[in-house]
């Protein structure tokens, strides 16, 4: 007699977990093969989980109401039988099997040939335990010696993000690494490394319960986590802004044909040393040129002192998504920099923000901000102003849209944008004027050459 661990299988094609609705056996129960052990409710149905063997129940893996993840221990049997259950890596006492033996042919017809030979089937070497160890499957990962389970799309993502899949803890069934796992991993280490001024006690990714809700599993209880680090500083800053600043926001769409052409023309000249040439340097150029004509948007208001300060420098903050939260590194004196310089500086600052090596000095002294919600597919939004600044411009994704040209509908690449401004400093008419100028530069970037 030996013990056999029976783990909760995926009974419904791609489930994460199941809730124990009822036990039909108890420790000590004698069970026969196919006898119902428990009713388990999944996202799809209540299903009966049968016994794989004849034997005696030693232990149960949970109580009624418990939610077990797929692969979690359900029942431990004492049995003389063995069974291989590959889907969750559990086996009984190892039994030598003639791996690759073609299935026996049914009774008829008399001359029916056998299934393909093992050669044609390209069998992988069969290990006695088959696949990951039960423990690895149960806790969803850990370091693995064999192949990492991941979809081709996830592998590609890992390749692109420079992530070693073997080091990622998989949250999917059987420890499968998901794209979310890769993204979390890619942003996680920096959180734990150098804590910047803004993010002192950051939650480590290796202990997700400390700072993040657990994902993927349907749970009946809420989970409260402390507000810490970057999330806390974002929360404070945004609350202050929303409470203090009366926002007005306007939305426009601009024909981006010339802008797209400008980027395409410049790209081969400016994309070098692995630094991409995106639209962002062009957008920064258009914004600083617009600010030259609308100084009210490059200003700060002080209600206590009852003063308005018009800034001499044009320092453009760039809202950057880091995985751990939003950070806003600042391109200083953007008006004095060439497109190539802007491209390199933006790339360097964004990388520094993402790996959390950006310094507090690099994130201060902003006078105006740009946010690029198009990077995650956004169309229009209502950007929130960074406190002490007067306005923020947000850009959506350039997409083909039907627009009237000389009374005829034509398809043009179209850039949506939103600008929010502090109504204490500017009025709607000012905002309209700012947008008109900005749109003129974006629609015809050659105007940027005329100088200020």
């Amino acid at each position, binding site marked *: 007699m030996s013990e056999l661990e029976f783990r909760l299988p995926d*009974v419904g094609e791609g489930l994460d977990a199941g809730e124990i609705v009822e036990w039909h056996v108890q420790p000590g129960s004698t069970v026969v093969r196919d006898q119902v052990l428990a009713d388990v409710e999944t996202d*799809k149905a209540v299903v*009966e989980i049968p016994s794989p063997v004849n034997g005696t129940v030693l232990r149960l893996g949970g109580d009624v109401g418990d939610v077990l993840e797929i692969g979690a221990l359900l029942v431990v049997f004492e049995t003389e039988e063995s069974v291989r259950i590959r889907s969750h890596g559990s086996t009984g006492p190892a039994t030598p099997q003639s791996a690759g033996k073609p299935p026996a042919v049914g009774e008829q017809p008399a001359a029916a040939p056998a299934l393909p030979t093992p050669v044609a089937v390209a069998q992988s070497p069969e290990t006695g335990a088959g696949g990951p160890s039960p423990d690895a499957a149960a806790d969803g990962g850990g370091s693995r010696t064999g192949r990492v389970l991941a979809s081709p799309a996830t592998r590609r993502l890992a390749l692109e993000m420079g992530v070693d899949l073997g080091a990622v803890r998989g949250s999917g069934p059987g420890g499968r690494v998901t794209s979310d796992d890769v993204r979390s991993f890619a942003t996680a280490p920096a959180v734990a490394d150098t804590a910047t001024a803004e993010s002192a006690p950051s939650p480590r990714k290796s202990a997700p319960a400390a700072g993040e809700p657990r994902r993927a599993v349907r749970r009946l209880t809420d989970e409260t986590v402390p507000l810490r680090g970057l999330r806390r500083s974002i929360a404070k800053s945004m609350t202050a802004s929303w409470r203090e600043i009366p926002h007005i926001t306007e939305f426009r769409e601009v024909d981006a044909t010339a802008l797209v052409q400008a980027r395409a023309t410049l790209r081969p000249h400016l994309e070098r040393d692995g630094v991409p040439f995106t639209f962002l340097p062009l957008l920064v150029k258009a914004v600083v040129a617009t600010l030259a004509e609308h100084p009210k948007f490059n200003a700060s208001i002080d209600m206590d002192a009852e003063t308005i300060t018009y800034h001499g420098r044009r320092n453009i903050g760039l809202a950057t998504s880091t995985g751990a939260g939003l950070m806003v590194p600042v391109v200083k004196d953007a008006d004095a920099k060439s497109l190539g310089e802007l491209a390199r500086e933006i790339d360097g600052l964004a990388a520094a923000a993402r790996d959390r090596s950006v310094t507090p000095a690099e994130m201060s002294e902003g006078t105006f901000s740009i946010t690029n919600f198009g990077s995650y597919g956004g169309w229009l939004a209502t950007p929130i102003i960074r406190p002490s600044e007067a306005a923020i411009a947000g850009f959506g994704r350039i997409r083909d849209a039907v627009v009237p040209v000389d009374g005829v509908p034509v398809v043009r690449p179209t850039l949506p944008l939103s600008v929010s401004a502090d109504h204490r400093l500017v009025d709607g008419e000012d905002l309209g004027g700012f947008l008109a100028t900005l749109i003129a530069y974006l629609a015809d970037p050659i105007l940027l050459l005329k100088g200020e």
Partner: protein
Amino acid sequence: MTAQPTADDPKTEAELDLESKQEDVERSFAGPGERLEILSPDGTVRPGTEAPMSTEQVRDALRWMMLSRTVDVRAISLQRQGRMGTFSAVRGQEASVVGSSFALDPARDWIVPQYRELPGVVRHGFPLDGYLLYWMGNPAGGRVPDGVKVLPLQIALAAQLPHAVGLGWGLKLQGSESVVATYFGDGASSEGDSHEAMNLAGVMRAPVVFFLQNNGWAISTPRTKQTAAANFASRAEGYGFPGVIVDGNDLFAVYAAMREAVERARTGGGPTLIESQTYRMGAHNTADDPTRYMEPVELSGWDERDPIRRVTAWLRSQDAWDDDAEREMQAGIDRQVDEAIESAEAFAPPNPEQIYTHVYADPPERLRAQQRAALDSH
């Protein structure tokens, strides 16, 4: 709903609702006189008809039906233990599948299956362990042994029908006397491929029997929402060949109708559409929960028409069946199924490389590159 509750008719709204649903179910099938029926639910042969099979043939057919039911139970249990990916049970449709396959000659006729014809394809030579292996997710199970005249199972609805017509037409061009039987369902009948295939088969007089198993459900879509027509068989007229309706839970009627259709095809008479009116007595597959859309009355009503019960009742009336015979047959089936499961589970798990090995003899570079990327360990 025709009646409102009155003092004389104290039915509750729920009861009336249930009755109305029951009527809907009944209406979705042809009535007596419109379809071929031989073996009635109580196991007697209807007046004016006779059993088209010998007692020995019926016992053999019963064995395949019982084998099918046994595999259903075992496979669902295996799936619930994590030992099988998914499974589509035949339960309820055994007479439909077995009766039709008995009219085919495995030595020369072809079966072009969908995915719910286990006893038919296994009788035709597809290995039972291979069939199980297929549902365990191993591509080795999809390989049809050489010489077995069965095409691979088809999950994509109705995609097998053009294949069946091409196969039949080709056999006809070769001067063969072989017949192609292809299986599909009420849901698949709504796919464009069904129309294209049947139309071409009619034009070319291809030796194909279109065996439509109307089991009442396309997963959760009921028959009444599948077509506005009274039945599916009447479509055949539009394609220029005969269409017949049979009681699909009646082994004899299914066999008789299929035998006639096969004979027509074999002798140059072209295709036939058979609508086998049966019932899926359970879930679409192991990932489905039929209690969310089926009325309990439907399940219980069709339990009484269990195709297996009908056959055993008839055999008993011929003194050709008793409890001992049943125990003996079941024991043999259990052994056969045990062996098939053991054999299927002895196969090594599939290797990701196999995803790339069965479509192209000479894979294009695009696919090779994808394969290298996928198989790269990290």
